[in-house]
């Protein structure tokens, strides 16, 4: 176990280093004169040259990479050109909103996707299977930003059932900030009105975000269960006379979820990325809308920090998925 853990941890180092190289190349290769842009239109060539020297832009590639590493390791991402605050502070403040939305979407797609996948497999090539497969094809092919707008159009603008945007209604007093997670903060402050309001705001963005994941979890669970159903032990259990429901939901499912587990891990990363657009449409005050704002205003420091952060989250989630995998299927630890 410890050896597996250590090995897996060591494997994370080159991918994190690769991430740093890629983001560095991103700023270095792309032809845009950061110093000239920062100095403004009225700057003289001497001023630009001085700024370039201060930023280390006149040094060799390797030296610049060293400077870059130093800044990243100390979490010095500079100041956002838009909010005029330290980027690291902005991110820390906005992260809980994104995590809240992501976890909720992840929960929705897993809690619905696994049973639906089993349902498909059990009814293999009958109408529930065809229907759900049709929807999962749609779920993968649909543009999330369009779904978001359609949901807003129907449920907020036409029917008026759910709020259009934001995390909390304007007239609702926000609970005191403790964890940053609005639902948890509301509950801790015993503010159930705010809790209900925040939950209502969560519904549409979470559904939009969950759609793609729901489709892929359903697909993977279905494939896993179908494969397990062919195994000898299923035939044996059937012969012994186990109740079908018990057999499927416990023994078959447990042996089929390895592929789904990996998928859930990958999903977490893709939900954070997919949240970028969804947050922007619903004005969700998280990392995603921050990213879009930074991209539209050309706020390079923020773009860099956010890209790095998402990369690190990806690497972390991959690591975690592999570890859970090892726990569920101990054979993996021996071959690794």
């Amino acid at each position, binding site marked *: 176990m410890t050896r597996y853990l250590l090995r897996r941890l060591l494997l994370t180092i080159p991918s994190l280093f690769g991430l740093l190289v890629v983001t560095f190349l991103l700023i270095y290769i*792309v032809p*845009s004169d950061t110093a000239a842009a920062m100095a403004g239109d009225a700057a003289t060539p001497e001023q630009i040259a001085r700024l370039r020297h201060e930023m280390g832009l006149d040094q060799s590639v390797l030296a610049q990479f060293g400077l870059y590493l130093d800044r990243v390791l100390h979490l010095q991402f500079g100041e956002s050109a838009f909010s005029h605050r330290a980027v690291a502070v902005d991110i820390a403040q906005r992260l809980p909103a994104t995590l809240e939305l992501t976890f909720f979407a992840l929960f929705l797609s897993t809690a619905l996707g696994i049973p639906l996948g089993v349902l498909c497999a059990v009814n293999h090539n009958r109408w529930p299977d065809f229907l759900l*497969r049709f929807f999962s094809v749609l779920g993968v092919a649909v*543009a999330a930003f369009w779904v978001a707008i359609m949901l807003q159009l129907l449920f907020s603008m036409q029917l008026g059932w759910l709020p259009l945007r934001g995390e909390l209604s304007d007239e609702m007093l926000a609970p005191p900030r403790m964890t940053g997670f609005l639902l948890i903060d509301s509950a801790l402050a015993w503010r159930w009105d705010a809790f209900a309001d925040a939950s209502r705001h969560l519904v549409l963005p979470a559904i939009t975000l969950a759609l793609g994941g729901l489709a892929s979890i359903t697909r993977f669970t279905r494939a896993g269960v179908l494969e397990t159903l062919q195994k000898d032990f299923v035939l044996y259990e059937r012969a012994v006379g186990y109740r079908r429901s018990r057999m499927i939901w416990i023994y078959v499912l447990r042996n089929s979820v390895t592929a789904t587990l990996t998928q859930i891990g990958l999903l977490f990363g893709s939900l954070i*990325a997919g949240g970028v657009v969804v947050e922007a449409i619903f004005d969700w005050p998280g990392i995603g809308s921050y990213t879009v704002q930074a991209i539209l205003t050309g706020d390079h420091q923020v*773009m860099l920090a956010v890209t790095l952060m*998402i990369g690190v989250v990806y690497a972390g989630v*991959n690591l975690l998925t592999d570890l859970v995998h090892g726990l569920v299927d101990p054979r993996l630890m021996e071959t690794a």
Partner: protein
Amino acid sequence: MLFLRRFSRDVPAMVGLAIVVLVLLVAVLGPLLAPYPADVSASHLARRLKPPSAAYPFGTDNLGRDVLSRVILGARGALTVSLVVVSLAMTIGIPLGLVAGYRGGWMSEGIMRITDAVLALPQLVLALALAQLMSPSLESAMLALALTYWPFFTRIVYAETRRLKSSLFVDALAGIGAGTARIVFLHVLPNTISPIIVRATIGLGFTILTAAVLGFLGMGAAPPAPDWGLSIAQSRSYLPAAWWYATFPGLAILLTVMGFNLLGDGLRDIVDPRLRRSR
């Protein structure tokens, strides 16, 4: 022709093929099919924001342009962008995969670590950041998407090349004195072509989707282009009254991407029978 017979029995794949052919036809014949081909740039303020009717089946937009015509004319742009992006990504990704797979050593390690690092980043976020850094335009968007999509091809070609490198026929070729370039380009590359085609088909649909997001965020096509993503972005100011303005371009994206995905899945089942159980 076992291949064709098996493919023609796969109903979803045939539906996908039909959709792709339809979209291709619409893209090629666009100006002939569109009821008002001039509505790419023309504006008719007298008939702005009209709901769907016999004359304008999909309604009109904020400048009085026929939404149906613009959806039809948008197909060409969407397909062009995704074809350019996927071809560019293949041009970068395939040679890198061949080199990394056949050569081995530090060069292979270097290429594959960079590939993995790019794959570990969300394509959309990376493409958005790149497109921004290169100053937003349709060309930047295409380049950014290609620069973030090549690793998918590198991974596939790398794996296939590694497998083929140790196969008997490559040994035999080397034994009778064939040069490395000859082996790699005339014998290894053709054997990797089927997974490449599958990936490219799925990539075409995927790129239409990401390109639409870039267009939606104003990082792609510029007005008055009849770009689907851009149209949806423009429609937001006229909701909820003009529901048709936002709805139909989105349906066009959905249909097109679905076509490529179904076709790609069908092709994959034929190319890689091990994966067939997944459907």
